[in-house]
């Protein structure tokens, strides 16, 4: 199938030979013939989609994820599926980012539940607001689940958001959005940003501070906020509890009976147990047990408390977003609490690469346009503000 797609790509490239600069093409021709990759936890009909889990090792979906359907309609050509953490739930994997940074494709799209891709400081990674792009066809959804775009420019992210956004009958959270992000990208209206007083990793603080100085010099107002450190320190814990509780429920359809690798047994129950025991990794199973533990009657108060702390974090952030356009934080290949805030609140968030560190910018829910405008300015001055 991939060979066939590559053949199609080459054929299409010949047709549009006079416009072979694919970066320009993304902006000018709505994607005709442009190759890209999707992470392997996004449903593509008749193309093997394993979610990097053994139980789906020979799974060929019968339906297309909404985002894949939209990209196909625009003429983009899928040339591969990238490795993901198992069902988007285990350890980090940056394959979809590397496909872009190594110039294999001009952009890639992933389905994630955390901030691992945005923690990589060598590529532009954009997470649109929760409810902006349909999640239909993403494996093992959670309330943190979102589509992320990896690209070589902020304007490519804006253009792809224009293509992928919009109401979808298969995802009740997604509403119509008339904004044209690409047209609005150079119309910056706000320049007031905030950052946390503390950083959650110990290296490269000087480089980040130098970067802040340079942003101030080009006209941004950046103020320092003293976050409640006890609250911030709870973020990864509550993210883990909520994600694993939700995943333990949404992965229950992986039985090996209607689809997936079937195990052995003399009863349906035995087949399911064997399929799941051998089809899911030990690390994933441990996480699912933790999720199920906090769903049990005696422990559910902890789960409820985690959801309340999530509310508190979002409430505090929303107060700040009334005063500031965006929140900025350093990125250094570590998934920090600050990056996970975007998952908790469903906020739009983008990571921009600089010389040795990255800069993450996060805005309030559905303020994707404002976020992309600020990112566009910073990225377009990238050469000058490299530290």
């Amino acid at each position, binding site marked *: 199938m991939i060979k066939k797609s590559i053949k199609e790509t080459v054929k299409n490239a010949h047709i549009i030979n006079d416009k072979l600069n694919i970066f320009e093409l993304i902006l000018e021709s709505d994607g005709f013939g442009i190759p890209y990759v999707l992470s392997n936890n996004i449903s593509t009909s008749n193309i093997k989609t394993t979610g990097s889990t053994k139980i789906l090792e020979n799974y060929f979906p*019968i339906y297309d994820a909404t985002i894949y359907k939209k990209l196909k309609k625009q003429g983009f050509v899928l040339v591969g599926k990238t490795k993901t953490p198992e069902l988007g739930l285990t350890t980090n994997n940056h394959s979809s980012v590397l496909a872009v940074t190594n110039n294999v494709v001009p952009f890639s799209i992933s389905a994630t539940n955390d901030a691992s891709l945005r923690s990589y400081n060598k590529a532009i990674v954009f997470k649109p607001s929760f409810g902006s792009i349909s999640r239909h066809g993403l494996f093992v959804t959670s309330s943190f689940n979102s589509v992320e775009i990896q690209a070589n420019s902020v304007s490519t992210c804006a253009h792809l958001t224009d293509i992928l956004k919009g109401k979808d009958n298969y995802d009740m959270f997604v509403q119509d959005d008339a904004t044209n992000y690409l047209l609005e990208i150079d119309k910056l209206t706000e320049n007031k940003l905030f950052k946390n007083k503390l950083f959650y990793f110990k290296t490269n603080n000087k480089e980040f501070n130098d970067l802040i100085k340079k942003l101030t010099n080009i006209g941004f107002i950046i103020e320092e906020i003293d976050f409640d450190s006890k609250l911030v320190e709870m973020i990864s814990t509550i993210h883990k509890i909520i994600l694993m509780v939700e995943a333990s429920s949404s992965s229950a359809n992986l039985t090996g009976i*209607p689809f997936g690798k*079937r195990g052995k047994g003399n*009863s349906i129950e035995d087949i399911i147990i064997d399929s799941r*025991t051998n089809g899911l990794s030990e690390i994933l*199973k441990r996480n*699912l047990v933790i999720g199920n533990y906090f769903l049990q009657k005696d422990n559910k108060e902890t789960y409820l408390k985690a959801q309340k702390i999530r509310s508190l974090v979002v409430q505090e952030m929303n107060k700040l977003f009334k005063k500031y356009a965006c929140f900025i934080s350093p990125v250094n290949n570590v998934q920090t609490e600050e990056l996970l805030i975007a998952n908790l*609140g469903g906020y739009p968030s983008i990571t921009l690469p600089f010389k040795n560190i990255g800069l993450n910018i996060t805005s309030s829910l559905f303020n994707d346009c404002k976020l992309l405008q600020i990112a566009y300015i910073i990225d377009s001055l990238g050469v000058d503000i490299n530290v």
Partner: protein
Amino acid sequence: MKDIIKHSLKDLMFEIENNSYKIIEKEIEEITKKMEDFKEPNIEPMIYPINLETFELREDEVEEEYNLEEILKNSTSYLNQVKVPKVIE
């Protein structure tokens, strides 16, 4: 704790390796301790970033249909049905 984990395994319908019990137990203890140390906020719990009450359900209409052959190709099937062991004696 081992019994509670076993209860979870029954719900989740899989088995784990023996050494996983201790790893899970340790992690649950750490999470529980951290959660206990934080005062419970007096606030509504957040389920989704967007309030579900503001949305309407779509009409229950068939938009796309799949043929049986396509649906069954990912399973062990027999005579156009998913094949499972006998459940009635």
